[in-house]
Structure formats: C-alpha cells, structure tokens
C-alpha cells in the first residue's frame, strides 16, 4: 500500500502495478486489522447496549414480579392507608406519603444551604480555601449512607428528643429523616450549583461589578437568571437521590406502618419498608413489595429524567 511512493518514470507499467498493489503479507495484515476493528467495535457496542438491556430488564422484572399483587389488590394498593402483612392488608399510602414528605423536607432545608455554600465558594471564599472547603463538602457525599443512619439514630435522634421533646417526642420520625436526607443531598446540589455558576462568562460578572453592583446584586440579577435551569436541574437531581435513599432513612424514620398525616410523627418510606420486610416476605407480600419497588423506580426515573433534561440544556449552553 505504501510502496508506490518511490516509483520513477523509467519503470515499466507492469512493474509499477506490482509495486503499487499490496503484497500477500500486507493484504493479510490489512484483513486481520479490519477484522480486529470490527470485533472491537462489536465488543464496545454490545457493552453499550447492555445499558439499555439493564433498564429494560429492571423495569420488566419488577413489572413481572409485581403483577400478581397488582391483580390481587388493584387500586386498594394505592389508596390503602395501612400496611399490615399479618392480615394481608397492603396499602402503599403510608410509604408513598413518607417518601414524598421526607424528600420535600430535605429539599426545603438543602436548597438555601446549598445556594449559600455555592455563593460562598464562587464569590466570597479566598482561592486558597476554595479547594479545601469544596473537597470537604464532596467528601460528605462520599460517606456511606449507613453511616448517616447510624449517626442519625445514635446521635441526632437522642439530641432532638432531649432538646425538643414537644416536637420530636420519639426523636425519630419524618422530620428527622428529612434532616438526615438534607445533609446527604447538600453536597450534590452544591456541586451542581457551583458548576453551573462557573459557566457564566466572567465578562458578564465583571461588567456588572463595573456598573457598581454589590456582590449580591451581581448574583441576584446576573448569575441567577442565566443559570436558573441548571440550578433547578441540580435540585431535582438531589430530590431523586432523597426519594430513593434507603439505609439512612430506615434507621430514623420510625417505621410506623399506619398513615399519620403529620410532619414530625413517625412513618415509613417506600425504600425503608422494602428494606425492613423484604427478606422475610413471600407470596403476596413479596409481590406487593416488588410492586412498591416498581412505583419507586418509576417516580425516581421520572424525576431524574427531568433533572438530566434540564442539565443537558445547561451543558449545551456552556459548550
């Protein structure tokens, strides 16, 4: 293939053809490499398709395993306010209520705090400290969730119980779980908020400062409007995390299987209910728990898809 470059005008036509065409050895090398190329692409493509297969089988297996319960219980599964395995009464309402309430409490606490940290990190903090504090917040995201649960039940719950006995009579409950969840999702929301705030071109910031704006006015009127979508994406991402969190919540939510429409009372969440009952369940109860898992998967899938969609728009702008 590469031998034709030194051909001079004196050589005969046949000679030239021979030199231009590949030798048998070169041809086999080309063939071999072509085969390797195809095999390599095949291997990488099938691994990538595995992701789609994963999603398909997760949904499929949960639907299949939860189907008997859905047939047996019908709508009462979603409207029943009591989950009592011993009398085969499976109402998912307490768990769904607990999941939503704890996540919303967590978001309500985490949003202002994460915003504050992001403002501090991008605008206030001396560059030297920036890396250290950023790392510390990110390490908080690395602590395993069971550690949060243990800490919540051994330190936070007794503290709340002894200092605010009127609000937290048992120490554990929906608000305690929400507080723990808030601590867990603050790092996620902070990281996203900080990153999208960095996508604002410095020249916009500088021109606002040049007009005499205070730091807060720059943030409020220049940075916020242009990163709104990305920040919302980060918040929804945190919400997705909070909805599906299991171990931290199981310890501190109180595991009360009756619906109690309060904010500080004891309750349960979908993930906590599954974690508590699944290993000893069979028959209808197991199927009902798997159905509950499907409900959680669908909720988080919708929430996370929304978050990714909003962040994607942000990335396109940054690019």
């Amino acid at each position: 293939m590469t031998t034709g470059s030194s051909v001079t005008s004196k050589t005969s036509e046949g000679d030239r053809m021979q030199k231009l065409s590949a030798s048998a050895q070169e041809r086999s090398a080309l063939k071999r490499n072509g085969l390797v190329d195809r095999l390599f692409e095949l291997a990488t493509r099938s691994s990538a398709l595995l992701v789609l297969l994963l999603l398909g089988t997760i949904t499929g297996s949960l639907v299949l395993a939860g189907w008997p319960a859905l047939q047996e219980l019908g709508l009462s599964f979603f409207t029943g306010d009591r989950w009592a395995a011993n009398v085969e009464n499976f109402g998912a309402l307490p768990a769904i209520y607990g999941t939503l309430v704890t996540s919303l409490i967590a978001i309500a606490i985490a949003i202002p705090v994460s915003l504050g940290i992001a403002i501090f990190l991008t605008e206030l903090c001396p560059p030297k400290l920036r890396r250290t504090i950023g790392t510390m917040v990110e390490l908080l995201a690395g602590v395993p969730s069971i550690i949060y649960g243990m800490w919540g039940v051994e330190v936070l719950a007794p503290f709340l119980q002894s200092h605010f006995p009127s609000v937290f009579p048992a120490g554990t409950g929906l608000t305690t779980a929400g507080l723990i969840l808030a601590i867990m999702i603050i790092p996620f929301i902070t990281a996203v908020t900080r990153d999208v705030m960095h996508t604002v071109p410095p020249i916009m910031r500088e021109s606002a400062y040049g007009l005499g704006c205070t730091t807060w006015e720059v943030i409020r009127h220049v940075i916020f409007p242009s990163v709104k979508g990305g920040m919302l994406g980060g918040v929804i991402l945190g919400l997705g995390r909070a909805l599906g969190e299991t171990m931290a919540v199981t310890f501190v939510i109180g595991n009360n299987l009756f619906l109690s429409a309060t904010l500080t009372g004891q309750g349960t969440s979908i993930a906590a209910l599954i974690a508590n009952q699944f290993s000893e369940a069979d028959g209808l109860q197991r199927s009902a728990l798997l159905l509950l898992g499907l409900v959680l998967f669908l909720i988080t899938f919708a929430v996370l898809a929304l978050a990714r969609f909003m962040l994607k728009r942000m990335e396109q702008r940054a690019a």
Partner: protein
Amino acid sequence: MNPVYRRRRTINRIIMAASLLASAFGVIWLFLILVTLVSKGVPALSLDVFTERTRMSGGGLGNAILGSLIMTALATIGGTMIGILAGTWLAEYGGRSKLANTIRFINDVLLSAPSIIIGLYIYAVVVLPMGHFSGWAGVAALMVIIIPVVIRSTEDMLLLVPNSLREAAAALGAHRWLIVLKVCYSGAKAGITTGVLLGCARISGETAPLLFTALNTNQWNFFNMGSEMPNLPMVLYQNMTINSFIPAQVSLAWAGALILTAAVLILNILARVSSARSQK
C-alpha cells in the same frame, strides 16, 4: 452616606454572612460525624476485630471485611471492563447518533437510580432462579451500580483527548482499534482511574443492594461465591437493628463503621489525587 447605598450594602452584608453560615452548616456535619465515628469506634478497635469472625456474642469483623473486599474487588474488575468498553463506544463510535444519545441519557438516570431497586432487580433475576442468596448475586448488584459510573467517566475522559492526536495516528496508517488502545487510552488513563476509584468507593459502602442478594452470615467465606457472603455494611445494619440490645454488638458496629468510612474516604482522596495529577 446615601441611604440607598447604605441599604444595598447592608443587604449585601446580610446575604454574605448568611452564605458564610450556610457553608459552616454544610461542613460541620462532616466534623460531627467524624468525631462520633472516632470517639465511638476507636475504643472498640482491637486486633481481634480484624482476625475474629462475627458471632452472636463477642467476636470480630474479620469475615465481614474479607467478604466485602472480595465482592467489591470482583464487582470493580467486572464493572470496569464493561464500563470502559461501553464508554469507549459512546465516545469513539457513537458520536451524536440517536442510539448513543439514548444510551447516554439512560446511563445518566441509572447513575443515580436508588440502590435498593438494584437489589430488588438482582433478587428477581439472580436470587429467585438460583433459589438462594449468594456472593455472585451481591457482586452482580454492585456491578450494576459501578458500571454507569465507569461509563460516564470513561466517556468524559476520552472526549478530552484532542482529535488531532487521533488524526495523526490515523495518518500514520494505524487502525481504529489501535488508535483507541494506544493513543486515546493512554491520554485518558488517569481520568478513567479516578472514575474507577470513585465507583469503587461508592460500592464499598452500599448496603441496600446487598440486603436481598449476598445477605450475611457469621461464618468465614473464602471465595465460595455460591453461598451467602458476609459483608461489613450488612453486619453494621444487623448489629444496629436486630442486635442493638447487645451493647458489645453496637460498639463493634461503630468499629466497623470507622473502618468502612476510613476505607471509603481514603479511596475518595486517592481518586482526587489521581485526578489532580491528570490535570497537570
């Protein structure tokens, strides 16, 4: 001073003080948790914790630590291979095609899917057909969690390799697989390592996916992957819930929590060091 200026300055100061407070509020939890871990975990640490197996009374965490190491290592190796291949396809072959964009989107969603759902999924497709809990099921669950992490970081890192390098190699006559192996991977090595370490840190602390897959046992289990596998997170969970009336088990759980957190944080810090090196 002009009252408008004064008001603007005051508002600014209040907000800045509030964000300072928020940062303190955010960071203080790490300290509180670390202080609790050290104060409750260190007194319970001893050599026996590492060498003895778990028992109903007394004992250590040796078998659980070993089991966790085995499962995490196998899941990391398997997940890294699949994840790197899939990430390579997305970055090198998939491009902006519809299929690649769909896979990217699904992968991003799986990246933060609840880990308990992964546990249920593996229970339905591995444990039920096999008929019993097993180490393999635990490894499979952990693999499902680490794969999206590796895919994401592999793709991101490969996209950072400049196209001119690929074109230069192609101009020299290199085939595409050789370009990916020799040019792209060597450029993205440090970044991919960071991703793998972060993924490994994440799965080594996961409890929820092991609840109905690997379960737990009090016995030593040396690579007998077909049967229940002891593991550290599950021991913590059981000691803090069904065994929480035994003070010795609770303090053992705190020793385990200290070991687990230390391992996870060290992995996280290693990942950061490796990513800082790649940026230089």
